[in-house]
């Protein structure tokens, strides 16, 4: 499409083209010190955006979806809406050269159009363990010519992963059973949703050495309140966004179905930022360590949002 337009332009407006070619050349020069610099990248979900910024190519991101909010400077990038209601035309207007996101972005036709426009599509299933998370960082790093930065990010993550694995193994060796946990999405006083094990937060439970009581459930479903009481979780894991809108942790603990679980009685709730807990981005290993700490090394309510200093535990 844009190639055709370009040809038409060239044949009719020679002088203008000379100027624009000059401009392209100039901008290419400033950022092309690395092999694949000067991309126009669209990030279709929050963790893709986070990875790109961690790789130091945030300035090449020309569009992000509404689930992107970390690091804070991503909010300056124009939003392309929500990843499940993509608008082909709005995406094409950004003239992307690379599109990073998850493979269940919708509609599929929007992804097809992007592919036809010549953009490189890097859409993959969302990672649900740390190995897949580091693989994705390497893959995105290679696509934007930031292999070195990706390698050092992964190296940092691997240090944390080793620490986590050691902790989990030591705990297992001591014969203590894993903590029984449930990941919920709560909102107001209405029915809570059980997060299925294909979702980041639920997957993170197992990664951090806990036992996901609703591990059989693949997709998220509305919870029947009695089954939470029947499952009797020792810890309830929730995301910050939902809890805030539900009136805070105290309101959550007042729900009758939560109140009568061991977690409710002992006020064992772990609240973590949505993207930090479930994004499986560059902070995934830290998040898993935080969740482990929430499971085994803290009492009462444990909150962690993955922002350098706001990790705190309180009773």
């Amino acid at each position, binding site marked *: 499409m844009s190639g055709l337009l370009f040809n038409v332009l060239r044949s009719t407006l020679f002088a203008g083209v000379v100027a624009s070619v000059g401009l392209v050349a100039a901008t290419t020069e400033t950022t092309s010190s690395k092999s694949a610099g000067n991309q126009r990248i669209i990030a279709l979900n929050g963790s893709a955006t986070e990875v790109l910024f961690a790789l130091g190519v945030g300035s090449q991101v020309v569009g992000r979806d*509404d*689930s992107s909010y970390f690091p804070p400077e991503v909010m300056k990038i124009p939003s392309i809406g*929500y990843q*499940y209601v993509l608008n082909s035309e709005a995406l094409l207007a950004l003239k992307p050269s690379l599109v990073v996101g998850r493979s269940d972005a919708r509609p599929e036709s929007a992804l097809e159009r992007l592919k036809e426009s010549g953009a490189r599509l890097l859409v993959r299933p969302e990672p649900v363990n740390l190995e897949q998370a580091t693989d994705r960082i390497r893959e995105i790093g290679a696509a934007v010519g930031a292999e070195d930065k990706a390698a050092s990010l992964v190296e940092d993550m691997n240090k944390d992963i080793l620490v986590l694995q050691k902790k989990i193994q030591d705990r297992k060796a001591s014969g203590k059973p894993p903590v029984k946990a449930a990941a919920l*999405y709560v*909102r*107001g*006083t*209405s*029915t*809570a*949703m*059980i997060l299925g094990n294909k979702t980041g937060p639920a997957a993170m439970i197992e990664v951090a050495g806990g036992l996901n009581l*609703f591990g059989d*459930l693949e997709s*998220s*479903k*509305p*919870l*029947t*309140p*009695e*089954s*939470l*009481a*029947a*499952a009797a979780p020792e810890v309830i894991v929730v995301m910050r*966004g*939902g809890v805030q*809108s539900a009136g805070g942790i105290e309101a959550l603990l007042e729900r*009758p*179905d939560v*109140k*009568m679980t061991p977690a409710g009685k002992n006020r064992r709730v772990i609240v973590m930022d949505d993207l930090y807990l479930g994004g499986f981005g560059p902070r995934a290993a830290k998040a898993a360590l935080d969740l482990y700490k929430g499971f085994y090394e803290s009492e009462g309510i444990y909150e962690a949002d993955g922002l350098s200093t706001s990790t705190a535990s309180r009773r």
Partner: protein
Amino acid sequence: MRDQNQAYPHWLFNRANGVLLVSFVLLILAVLHSSSRGAYAIPALKIPGMLWNQAGDGYEVLLNVRLPRVLLAIIVGAALGLAGATMQALFRNPLADPGLLGIISGASVGAAGWMILSHRLPDWTILQGAWGMPLMAFVGAMIAMASVWRLASAAGQMPIAILLLAGIAINAIGASILGFLIYLAEATQAQGLIFWMMGGLGAATWKLCLVTGVCFILAAPVILSLARPLDALVLGEGEAYHLGVRVERTKMIAVIACSIAVGGAVAAAGGIGFIGIVVPHLLRIVAGTGRHGFLLPASALAGGALLITADSVARTIVVPAELPVGIVMGFVGGPFLAYLLWKRRRQLAGNAAFAGASHA
């Protein structure tokens, strides 16, 4: 039809009373059965002992999760059954139903609007507390009902086709506003809203029972006291006037009371359709009369029994998840509505008169 003549033999009154009694017994049976079923295993025979001793494994689940839910199902089912029976008299139309005419849709818009936008509303206690949602649902229901009424009235008549088309229009408007609210909501909030719209009693607490119960208690006695005027209204507004009914006043009170009942029900449980149409019709068929002194209380009792039963299916069939109870009702009510249309198609095509059993 069983009785085309207006005069009832004496035994028919007994039959209606019999159906009323059966509805009551069914409600009690539904309560007992539903109280003994759930994701948390509690042996039915231990329940009386647990309640007596106020202890035992699962006592808290029974007391704070299951029983409020059963009570909420009674209130919501009764409110919707009662509203359905009243609206059929009010609109002189067998297909008048809070769902089909868009009243549930209107109430849903009010309630969903409150859910998404309450933090932007003025900081009045009445809007921000537990009453905010039922109040907004009531306002939505009122607006929808008044709109249907205005749209469908043609020279003092309310032809059935026009009435249903008005319902379609109101439902369409409601659906677009709900869609827009979903669009405004963030992703997970939107998902929750979609499930809420399909109807569910999962939010049941004693407090919610109280709020919904107050709405019902405001509406039900008023509606029940209108039994005789509604009987007259079914014959036509002119006839009702000559029988000494204050027509406009009756209609207005009935509309407000129905809106309170539907508003409270929707705020508590979302959009649950078909109860208002299935229950009164079954009762008319079984009892052979549509006399409102019988139909109104029976619709409330049987509506409660039906929703309790539907909800115990909804909350036990896919444990640990649950099915929206509106979907369970849809599976029952949709085919029933189709059956009703098939059976009455000649009458419905022929005239706008009140099909079904005649009214005294």
